[in-house]
């Protein structure tokens, strides 16, 4: 039997070697991949043992910080103004993170290689490890005004404000929203309950409507169509263009009409079959004129222009991932569909951020700056780690074309005929704008989305705003007042400095 026993001993030796290999695999080779697996509470709880970095606004208001607490964990995340900044900060929970909390986690948690040197020094000097402070470009006055104005509509809505000369995002608000403080709980059962509640709530509070949802741009897209026309060199604001009351769409039995089936008449087109200046058509937002103009310019030229405004880009990050605003190619360059696309219908889709980018490009003499939200990252010892460098995203139009579009956008507010005259004319500030009322739903039976893009002051632009209110009705009525409030709040805060 000894022979068999010796062989069994060898087998058992083999089994123990297998076990040793197996524990070596798990503990020496796998730890880094296990650490990032889903549901690894150890990795997440680890970060509550030290102070995570704060998130502050451009004007140094703290919007996320870690405070010392008693219990299993030493620090808990607190969001002092949770609802207003939720789309910006996101949340940081035991199991996951979103928003800036996720995008800048390396700096906030202190795991970025740039910070390890500082941590090492802290370790030697006996100071506890801390995360870096992330300063955003967000202006607290603009952000607060944006959220309050969106909330007042009671409708799903998003708004974004940009500094046209740099691309710095001044405000990014979404409604309805969520309370990130509720995600800061250490009670995992409670956390799951909160998460399920927000996840399945029909109003989708976790959705950041400013950058994660797209809407039809409606007539605001006429900014792009006009830019295409001026860039072709064949048009100026004074060019008289065909302005029928009903535009027959070739190859269909349909007709394109204006809002409320109104004629496009500045007094020089009484037959409803003549011409009006392009400036007038833009000011009163004639669909028939721009539909026809779109067919003249062609689908390809408009699409290329739209792309120079930042559309059809799936990779935009601010550093949060932005949903793609799209102007897809019209199948077979069909003229009828091109006409719809030229007035922001058919398959055109934009985010409120894209709306702000339209105006920002025009305001900045045709140069579109890359939008960004992180201004500066500072190590715990106050060493700056990252400082934002404004960068050009694209040259949307020439300065001449930008001036021409600006002239028309000013007229939308200034002219008594202008669609935004009633709601966006305010004393002391000249706003340049374009309204949009996007039809929605099957056979356009849904409530119209109210869209608005603008910048101010028109002579020396400091802020560009995009607002979309879902089901808000007329862009001029629902969205323009929101943009005005954001502009007033921002300019007032700048004047005080």
């Amino acid at each position, binding site marked *: 039997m000894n022979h068999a026993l010796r062989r*069994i001993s060898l087998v058992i030796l083999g*089994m123990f070697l297998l*076990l040793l290999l*197996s524990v*070596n695999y*798990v503990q020496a080779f796998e*730890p880094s991949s296990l650490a990032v697996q*889903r*549901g690894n509470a150890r990795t997440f709880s680890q970060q509550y043992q030290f102070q995570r970095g704060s998130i502050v606004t451009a004007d140094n208001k703290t919007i996320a910080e870690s405070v010392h607490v008693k219990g299993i964990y030493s620090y808990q995340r607190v969001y002092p103004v949770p609802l207003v900044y939720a789309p910006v900060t996101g949340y940081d929970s035991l199991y996951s993170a979103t928003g800036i909390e996720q995008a800048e986690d390396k700096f906030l948690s202190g795991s970025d290689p740039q910070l390890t040197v500082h941590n090492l020094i802290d370790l030697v000097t006996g100071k506890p490890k801390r995360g870096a402070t992330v300063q955003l470009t967000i202006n607290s006055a603009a952000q607060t005004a944006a959220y309050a104005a969106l909330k007042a509509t009671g409708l799903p809505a998003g708004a974004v404000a940009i500094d046209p000369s740099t691309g710095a995002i001044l405000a990014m608000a979404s409604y309805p929203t969520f309370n990130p403080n509720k995600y800061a709980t250490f009670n995992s059962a409670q956390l799951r309950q909160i998460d399920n509640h927000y996840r399945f709530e029909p109003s989708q509070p976790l959705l950041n409507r400013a950058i994660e949802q797209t809407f039809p741009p409606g007539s605001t897209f006429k900014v792009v169509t006009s830019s295409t026309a001026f860039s072709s060199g064949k048009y100026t604001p004074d060019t008289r263009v065909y302005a029928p009351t009903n535009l027959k769409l070739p190859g269909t039995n349909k007709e394109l009409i204006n809002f409320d089936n109104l004629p496009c008449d500045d007094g020089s087109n009484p037959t409803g079959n003549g011409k009006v200046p392009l400036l007038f058509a833009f000011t009163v937002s004639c669909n028939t004129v721009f539909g026809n103009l779109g067919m003249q310019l062609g689908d390809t030229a408009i699409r290329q222009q739209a792309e120079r405004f930042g559309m059809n880009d799936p990779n935009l990050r601010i550093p949060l991932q932005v949903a793609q605003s799209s102007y897809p190619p019209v199948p077979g360059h069909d003229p009828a569909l091109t006409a719809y696309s030229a007035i922001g219908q058919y398959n055109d889709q934009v985010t409120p951020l894209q709306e702000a980018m339209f105006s920002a490009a025009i305001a900045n003499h045709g140069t579109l700056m890359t939008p960004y939200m992180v201004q500066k990252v500072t190590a715990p010892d106050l060493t700056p780690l990252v400082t934002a460098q404004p960068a050009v995203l694209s040259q949307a139009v020439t300065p001449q074309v930008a001036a021409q579009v600006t002239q028309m956008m000013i007229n939308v507010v200034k002219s008594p005929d202008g669609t935004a005259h009633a709601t966006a004319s305010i004393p002391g500030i000249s706003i340049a704008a374009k309204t949009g009322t996007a039809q929605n739903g099957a056979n356009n039976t849904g409530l119209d989305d109210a869209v608005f893009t603008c910048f101010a002051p028109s002579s020396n632009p400091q802020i560009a705003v995009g607002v979309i209110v879902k089901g808000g009705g007329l862009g001029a009525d629902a969205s323009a007042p929101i943009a005005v409030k954001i502009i007033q709040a921002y300019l007032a805060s700048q004047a005080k400095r």
Partner: protein
Amino acid sequence: MPRGRRRTELAMLVFAVAVVLFAYANVGLSMTGRIPAGIVAYGLAFALLVLVAHLAIRWLAPWADPLMLPLAALLNGLGIVMIYRLQQSGRDGNSGRVISTMSTSSTVLQMIWSAVGIAAFIAVLALVREPRLLQRYTYTFGVIGLVLLAIPAVPGIGSEINGAKVWISIGSFSIQPGEFAKLALAVFFAGYLVAKRDVLSLAGRRVLGIDLPRARDLGPVLIAWGASLLILIFETDIGTSALFFGLFLVMLYIATQRTSWLLIGGGLFVAGAFAASRLFGHVGERFTIWLHPFAGNNPFGISYQLVQGLYGMGFGGVLGTGLGNGQPYWTPLVQSDFIVTAFGEELGLTGLMAILLIYGLIVQRGLRAAIAVRDPFSKLLAGGLAVVLALQVFVIVGGVTRLIPLTGITTPFLSQGGSSLVASWMLIALLMRISDTARRPAPQPIQEEGMTQVVRGR
């Protein structure tokens, strides 16, 4: 002149107690910054227990292997320390979460069970003065083993805890009879196989260079196979089932030296397990947990315990977090089936490999006794006991590290729970008894210096 090496044993025991006390102090220092107040009481009690065991060996089995007791004592002590550490989690101002499946008296209970285990150890050494005595009761042990195995499946007596029906409740105590059935069946298999090994090793047809046994001799294998499948089906306990069938097969192989038995048995086991995985949801689920632990909702559902164990071991890495500094409380039942992951987390890869080597050494000492002892029954019994210990470690450590499908089974000496601890001590007692027999020198004729040596006439 062979020596009993009892002094070596005593010196090693001092080391074992020192390591355990150091670990205990370590837990207190990292959890509260102070050496735990109970260190004197616990330390004295533990030292006294192993001293009593050592003295009993001097008296009852002076020639026994000197390493087994220190190794077993070290594991038992480390188990108590880890249970203390887990029990303290989230209590008395310690950081972490309270492990709801543990009470504040867990450590004291484990200490009491250790005392019972050492008492059982001494009792076995005292009662079984000669291993061959057991051979007389071969079939008695067979019946005892089967009854112990079957009891938990009887409605009204057995109780299901954590999905496996391997417990019986007596008052407020729960006992896992399977732990003791293991020992009884090892004795039965040894006695039975020694008696029948000549018949079972008769060769039948030769296929592909392997001598197949005769068809009529397949009976015992099929019975053992059937019994292990019944455990699998009625007690939903894959670990115990695999352990018994594996034990039987290896002992059959040692007795007959026929590789064909291993192949036939292994084939039957794989076929049975495969069929069971298709027919019974809980068995199939084990394979899903094994193969796809991170898929879909599994990390939050069926494979929660496994992945938390893996996360813990990964968190510990090569050097570990140090006792008391990890977060083993996230892993459900970390104090019993998953205690290995707690050691992996807090003592690291280094500590866990050391623990595996301790088990490996015990098994090696057992096999060494089996090879050294002359009597075939003792040889087979020692081999079987060493193998069952190795299999048990392989099944649980392989399970928690995803080497093989996870099955719930205790970790000998470390896991919380009395049955496993007492049975493990009895197993060590049997191995030491056999090694004592093996190493005991043959009686020497009496001689006195200066006298003419008496030459026996025979």
